[in-house]
């Protein structure tokens, strides 16, 4: 039974509560708007269609999460446990789609998969053109699966690489088949990590606007967007419903999917690699094909936009000046610097605030920790518009903070609220697999609890902390709605550049910004996420 009220209030509980309070501001803002605009829940529910978009949102979220889970864990298992061909290349490529903003993948797909598009021709040859319609539900699913599976792949791989294979070996000796070994022995040990990533995937999908808008899948996110001027209360109500969906999924995960650590053995020998035989090439090819949809196809299409715009550079734009790759790149400099600085500061603050929270939430199973965890995680699903407007309300209209308005800290604060969940989840997962025996051992040897934390636990947590830091940075770089509204006047990031140019049909310029954005993301992705999660046990 979880205890209702913590027996004594520790400083950690107070700090965690204060931080969680910040994450409740968007919800408080929604309530304030709903109260001041004098609408009741009942009238909104009667006056607008809620259930259809809600069902579509949940359907998309569940479908994408299931397939991402399959893809993410399969990739992790292939890399960690098999002799798949080209392993070192695949290890770098598999997590990269994380760096691609969803609206870029969607806008390139809209063009690549239309009749007369290059890929459509290919599908016609394969007689698949009637089966694969890359729009609506299917299109949204495919794009989102390709972007989100790294959320599951990364923690699962990290977990797999910490386990040894003694139990698997024993099972093998008892002539169990590979699949049943995976299902009965490996899976229970990695399921916590996989499900933790699944929650992030689900929240990402239900809040994503770019893909569903561009590929034509109306759901809660598009409803929130469509109603925001004509009927703001409807938008706020729908945002609140999105938050409820998010909190429900967090509770479901915690209750049904999150198990106590199941270790079959103490740390020991190195893991054995399964020999795939001739299948090692087939699996490598399949993996490459999937990655190419997420990475190579969008990049090739973007390059073709740049190429087309350069070809016809002297046509038309008399006053605007002609399209020039060098000019576009030169203009990107300050934008890239902005993007870098803001993303790194956001990542740092998210890490600093989330380490104590993750520690508190993991070590204390009570109502308070559940609420804190739910609040912070659910903010990942709240539309950026709401978070940005809340940031405006709580700085500009509280005289104590007014001096901050229009400065970068407000933007960073809004980012923190949106993406704190990613840092929290990573660190939380890291703490949950720390061996409690280790803590006990250190205590018996007379280490103080402070020393225990700083000298023994924190160093072991370095990888999950860095992974969380990297995830927050990557998300910040891709972020759009919060940046457009909460940033200082005149402040631009690569993502806002892409959107502004694409929306008005300046494809060449949009493509240059997109490619820069992908490049910047790749650099961060490589140094923070991939490197720290790299499976170190390749040869054995």
């Amino acid at each position, binding site marked *: 039974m979880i205890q209702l009220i913590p027996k004594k209030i520790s400083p950690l509980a107070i700090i965690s509560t*204060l*931080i969680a*309070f*910040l994450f409740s501001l968007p919800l*408080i803002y929604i309530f*304030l708007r709903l109260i*001041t605009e004098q609408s009741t829940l009942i009238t909104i529910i009667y006056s607008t*269609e809620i259930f259809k978009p809600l069902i579509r949102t949940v359907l998309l979220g569940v479908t994408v999460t299931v397939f991402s889970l399959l893809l993410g864990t399969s990739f992790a298992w292939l890399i960690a446990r098999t002799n798949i061909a080209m392993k070192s290349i695949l290890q770098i490529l598999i997590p990269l789609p994380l760096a691609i903003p969803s609206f870029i993948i969607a806008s390139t797909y*809209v063009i690549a998969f*239309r*009749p*007369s598009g290059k890929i459509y021709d290919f599908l016609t040859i394969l007689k698949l053109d009637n089966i694969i319609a890359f729009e609506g539900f299917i299109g949204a699913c495919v794009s989102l699966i390709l972007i989100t599976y790294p959320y599951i792949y990364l923690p699962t791989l990290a977990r797999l690489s910490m386990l040894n294979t003694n139990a698997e070996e024993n099972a093998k000796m008892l002539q169990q088949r590979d699949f049943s070994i995976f299902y009965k022995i490996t899976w229970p040990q990695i399921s916590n990590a996989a499900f933790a990533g699944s929650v992030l995937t689900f929240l990402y999908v239900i809040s994503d606007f770019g893909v569903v*808008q*561009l590929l*034509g899948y109306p759901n809660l996110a*598009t*409803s929130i*967007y*469509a*109603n*925001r*001027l*004509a*009927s703001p209360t409807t938008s706020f109500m729908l945002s609140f419903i999105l938050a409820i969906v998010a909190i429900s999924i967090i509770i479901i995960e915690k209750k049904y999917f999150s198990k106590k650590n199941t270790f079959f053995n103490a740390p020991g020998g190195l893991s054995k690699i399964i020999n795939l035989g001739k299948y090692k090439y087939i699996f490598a090819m399949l993996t490459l094909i999937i990655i190419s949809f997420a990475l190579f196809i969008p990049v090739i299409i973007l390059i073709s936009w740049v190429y*087309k715009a350069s070809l*016809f550079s002297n*046509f*038309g*734009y008399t006053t*605007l*000046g002609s399209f020039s790759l060098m000019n576009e790149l030169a203009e990107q400099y*300050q*934008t890239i610097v*902005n993007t870098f*600085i803001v993303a790194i500061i956001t990542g740092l*603050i998210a890490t*600093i605030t989330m380490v104590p929270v993750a520690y508190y939430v993991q070590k204390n199973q009570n109502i308070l920790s559940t609420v804190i965890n739910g609040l912070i995680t659910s903010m990942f699903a709240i539309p950026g518009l709401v978070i940005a407007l809340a940031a*405006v309300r*709580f700085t*500009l*209209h509280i005289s*104590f*903070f007014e001096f*901050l308005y*229009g400065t*970068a*800290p407000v933007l960073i604060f809004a980012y923190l609220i949106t993406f704190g969940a990613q840092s929290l989840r990573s660190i939380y997962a890291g703490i949950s697999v720390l061996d409690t025996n280790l803590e006990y051992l250190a205590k018996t040897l007379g280490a103080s609890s402070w020393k225990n934390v700083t000298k023994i636990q924190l160093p072991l947590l370095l990888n999950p902390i860095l992974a969380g830091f990297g995830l927050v940075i990557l998300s910040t770089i891709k972020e759009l709605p919060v940046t*457009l*509204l909460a*940033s*200082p*006047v*005149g*402040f631009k990031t690569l993502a806002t550049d892409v959107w502004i*140019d694409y*929306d*008005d*049909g*300046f494809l060449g*310029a949009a493509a240059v910004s997109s490619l820069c954005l992908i490049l910047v993301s790749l650099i961060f992705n490589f140094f923070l996420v991939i490197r720290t999660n790299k499976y170190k046990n390749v040869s054995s």
Partner: protein
Amino acid sequence: MNIASKNIFATKKINVFAIGILISLGALFSACNSESESETSKSAIDTVDTSKTLVVYSGRKEKLIAPILIQFTAATGIKIKVKYGSSTDMALLIAEEGMKTPADVFISQSPGPVGYLADKNFLAKLPVAITSQTVTSNSGNWIGISARQRVLVYNTNTVDPKNIPASITELSKPEWASRIAISAKNSSFQDWLTLLRLEIGDDSAEKWLTDFVTNGGKWDYGNNTSIVQAVAAGEQEMGLVNHYYLLKLKAEDPTLKAANYNFADGDIGGAVLLATASILSASDNKANAKALLEYLVSNDGQKYFSTATYEYLLSDNARAIDGKLDTFLNKVKFVNFDKLGSELAETLNLIKRAGITL
């Protein structure tokens, strides 16, 4: 296109960690006084002050407006800082900022978001000296700076323009609707639909859209650009869009197999939508703001819009320069633009009743 210094960290060096703590403490102790005391807006000083930077919130995208703002700064010495975003989001932001908004001028792609702000009394009444030069609202709180026309873009390989009906009202019939794409979520389309309602009545407008949907019209395109691309690629035969998207895409790729079809003179299908400029009533920089509005409708300003953004001009002077556009504008109806803001909610309901999920 660097309009003003973008180095945000140079202006206020603040220890971010201290701020985190401040925010948490302050948020606990301060009540959320949501509707703050508004400063009584200072009466505008009528002389331009070049030391005061003008803050513009622009729903018009950077590529389309930044060059003329740079021209303005060169001509007057008044520096400008711009925030770009969709017109709707900028209007929502201004409404949230209220009388504390840092914005002096709001440039909007369409009158819808402007109407939203006008209803909440966030817009200043403009001097007749400015409004008399161009199209304005009854209340005189915005001016039109450029215009775009609704057209039917068609694929030149598959559609013969001679067969296209003269009026858009015919296009909801089965033989046409099934070959046409619209973007129901696009604000230009929604503004146009409001004009259609005001022109032919709510019931007829709803019947038109319902027929269009049931007769196989495709409505779920994400934006104008993707419709024009689909038409040029032959995926769709025709699409209802603003006129300049094709002109811009053709500038990047002249081989596109698409052309714009104009409906008969005076037909609602060819309605003109306006980009507008307004001054915020909270602005303490009104003299500079007025200077910008005047510049936008001046000959220099108007020339920019016609040559660079392929739009139609609105100022009386500019229309005199280019006789071709003048004759075009005289034929087009200007229907009740003031209503576009307040009518948007009803237009969205109509779209939903027609079977479209937004």
